[in-house]
């Protein structure tokens, strides 16, 4: 809970309540509803209320409207006794879930748009400070999310979908924007429901390229046999490695290379790449590379081709997951569900706007970078009293970047 004041929390709660009163029927109802565990945070307490279950959508809706939670979650798992304590629930299986969070990605924009706020002085400070220079109170971090962050997350989601469809052959998915910094993807195929943690870990390792062996691809031999080395048209990881290396050679994009190899080594490798690129034919010229370049390109390709997912989430077979189409209390945006086939077209900052844009609220903005909601663009501002569309005001209130005057 990042609200600056109780009044901020209570006005946001009022808008949340109105939203749920009007649109409860659009909330996602997970399959096998009575076997799922539910949990939620209220606006008032920091503790999650969990081990709940609902026998019908009506029961769930009633509870949500009555309580107006800040965040609502349900289990990816099915239980015999969803209300029992963890070890007595009787696990029956769980969907395979993926969380892609821009927070885990090394987006360069983060340094630019994150800041800290002193709740007492209502002032913004750089992330590097821990205590308020004026009053000495500890500062609260405000993590901003921009188009670049979400584009990076979308790219990871794209790669993930390719692993899930092209490699694993899964066909039943649902996808949602998290309402904040990323995307959730859930595999519903019957065949995965009973996979245990260790088996899920194998899938995770595949998706993240963990344990991928250069040797088994025939790339550690002194003299490379192009017949057995990875080629562009190969399936699975072999093809991914070949394509990524080929692109690195063709585009001469050295940024990743520097990250993998370090600046000092990178330069000699870059000279070698330039030489090789001149004679770049139709496939990867593994045989022309010296072992060190081969290894560096392999590592860079693995980094580029793997999908950066939150591995803890996927391996946890008891994990709670944000309820689709519910509101995210960190932003007031909706955890909007969408068709995974339309990942490329999804526009998070307009499709997830669920609170009114035609209603207005006056708030004191401590700090806000430039942002866009729906069709409306908001200019950067700091220490300013502003009349904003309710959805935008609530976004800032939820983040602790603004407060009621």
């Amino acid at each position, binding site marked *: 809970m990042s609200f600056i004041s109780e009044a901020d929390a209570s006005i946001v709660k009022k808008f949340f309540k109105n939203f749920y009163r009007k649109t409860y029927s659009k909330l996602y109802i997970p399959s096998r509803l009575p076997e799922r565990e539910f949990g939620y945070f209220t606006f008032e307490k920091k503790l999650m209320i969990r081990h709940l279950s609902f026998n019908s959508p009506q029961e769930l809706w009633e509870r949500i409207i009555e309580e107006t939670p800040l965040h609502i979650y349900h289990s990816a798992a099915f239980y015999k006794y969803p209300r029992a304590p963890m*070890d007595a629930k009787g696990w029956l299986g769980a969907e395979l879930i993926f969380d892609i969070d821009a927070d885990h990605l090394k987006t360069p924009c983060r340094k630019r748009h994150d800041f800290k706020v002193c709740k007492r002085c209502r002032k913004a400070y750089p992330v590097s400070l821990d205590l308020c220079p004026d009053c000495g109170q500890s500062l609260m971090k405000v993590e901003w999310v921009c188009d670049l962050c979400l584009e990076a997350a979308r790219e990871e989601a794209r790669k993930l979908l390719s692993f899930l469809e092209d*490699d694993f052959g899964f066909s039943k998915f649902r996808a949602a924007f998290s309402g904040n910094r990323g995307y959730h993807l859930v595999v519903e195929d019957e065949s995965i429901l009973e996979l245990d943690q260790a088996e899920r870990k*194998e899938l995770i390792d595949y998706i993240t390229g963990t344990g991928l062996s250069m040797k*088994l691809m025939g790339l550690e031999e002194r003299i490379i046999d192009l017949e057995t080395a990875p080629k562009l048209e*190969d399936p*699975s990881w072999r093809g991914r490695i070949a394509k990524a290396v080929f692109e690195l050679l063709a585009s001469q994009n050295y940024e990743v290379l520097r990250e993998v190899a370090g600046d000092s080594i990178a330069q000699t490798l870059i000279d070698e790449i330039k030489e090789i690129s001149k004679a770049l034919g139709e496939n990867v010229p593994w045989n022309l590379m010296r072992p060190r370049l081969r290894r560096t390109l392999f590592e860079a390709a693995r980094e580029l081709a793997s999908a950066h997912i939150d591995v803890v989430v996927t391996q946890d077979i008891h994990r709670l997951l944000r309820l689709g189409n519910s509101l995210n209390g960190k932003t007031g945006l909706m955890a909007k569900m969408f068709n995974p086939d339309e990942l490329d077209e999804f526009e998070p900052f307009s499709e997830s706007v669920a609170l009114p844009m035609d209603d207005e609220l006056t708030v004191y903005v401590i700090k806000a970078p430039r942002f866009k909601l729906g069709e409306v663009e908001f200019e950067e501002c700091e220490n300013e009293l502003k009349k904003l569309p309710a959805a935008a005001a609530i976004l800032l209130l939820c983040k602790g970047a603004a407060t009621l005057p």
Partner: protein
Amino acid sequence: MPSTSRLSILAKYPFLPEARRYISEYGLTLESFSDPAYSKIVERAKQRIVDAIRLGEGVDPSNMSEDEVVELASFPLAIILIAAIKDRFLARRFALTEASLATKLLLDDDSKTILRIAREVFGMDVKAEEAQAMAHEYSMGLRDYLKGSMTFNAPSWKLVNRIVIRGRVMITINELIRLMKDKVMEYVLENIEKAMSRPPKLPQNLQKIIDEIKSTLPSKRYEEEIISGESSPEAWPPCMKLIYQNVMKGENVSHFANFALASFLINIGMNLDDILKIFAHRPDFDQRIARYQIEHIAGLRGSRTKYTTPSCDTMKTNGLCVEDGKLCGGVKNPLAYFRRSLRRLRKADKDKAEVEGERS
């Protein structure tokens, strides 16, 4: 009477469902084995068990009887005998030996037969691939592959190093046979369990064989009660207890779990011979190799570094942590749990001694 070729496949793979049918049609009962006419079958059944004790995975098809009926009928009989001996270690070792024998025969068999057995007998989701991806002639469904390959540690079995296309994992015929080996083992064990749950009355000559085999078994292997005093499992963390129990039951334990337990036991000061006795419960136990490995972990060989016990984090990563450490009160290494509970046990002993002292 079935044709010879039919008999041949049944004799080679006596775990096939048709083999069972054939035996019941033949009208053999346990009583019939007291008839000297069937002495060859009884002898071969005994030989199967002796092979399990002596050869294990080194079993050789050349020990098979040329008489196919003998080969076929001796298999279920051996299972009944093993069940009557009631030694879990021997049961697993026998299952492993039979599975190894089947593996060796499968390697020489034609692919149609192999595929049929895999699919029809073991229900494996496997098929021949027309367009072979890099010399992989077969493919297995992702889920079956995961279930089957989990206990293998070689990087080449790891999913990330496989060719996986639309839910099919490409495998070679040899890999398929390796996966089938575990299925045969499971099958044999299940049948021993079944036979154990309803023990039949055995004719005298069979009872005599059982006694004979029992007397040749390596005298008393290590049983739980032998571990006493300060290294007793009572003081061990849940993760180590669980691996230990699985080893003692002769179950398949991953390479890493074995390493974790061995390094734990070395670090709590158990002597190497006692550790070796615990690992002797592995069905594929090889005294020489196991001793070398344990001495290596203890730092007596190779790099001469004594290995420390994997941390709780590492145990978690390898899926060996029990209940997310909830039972362990926030320790970071399984050894810390042991030291802590040892202190508690010592204190409890001291308290007890004091109470008793007061009484006297």
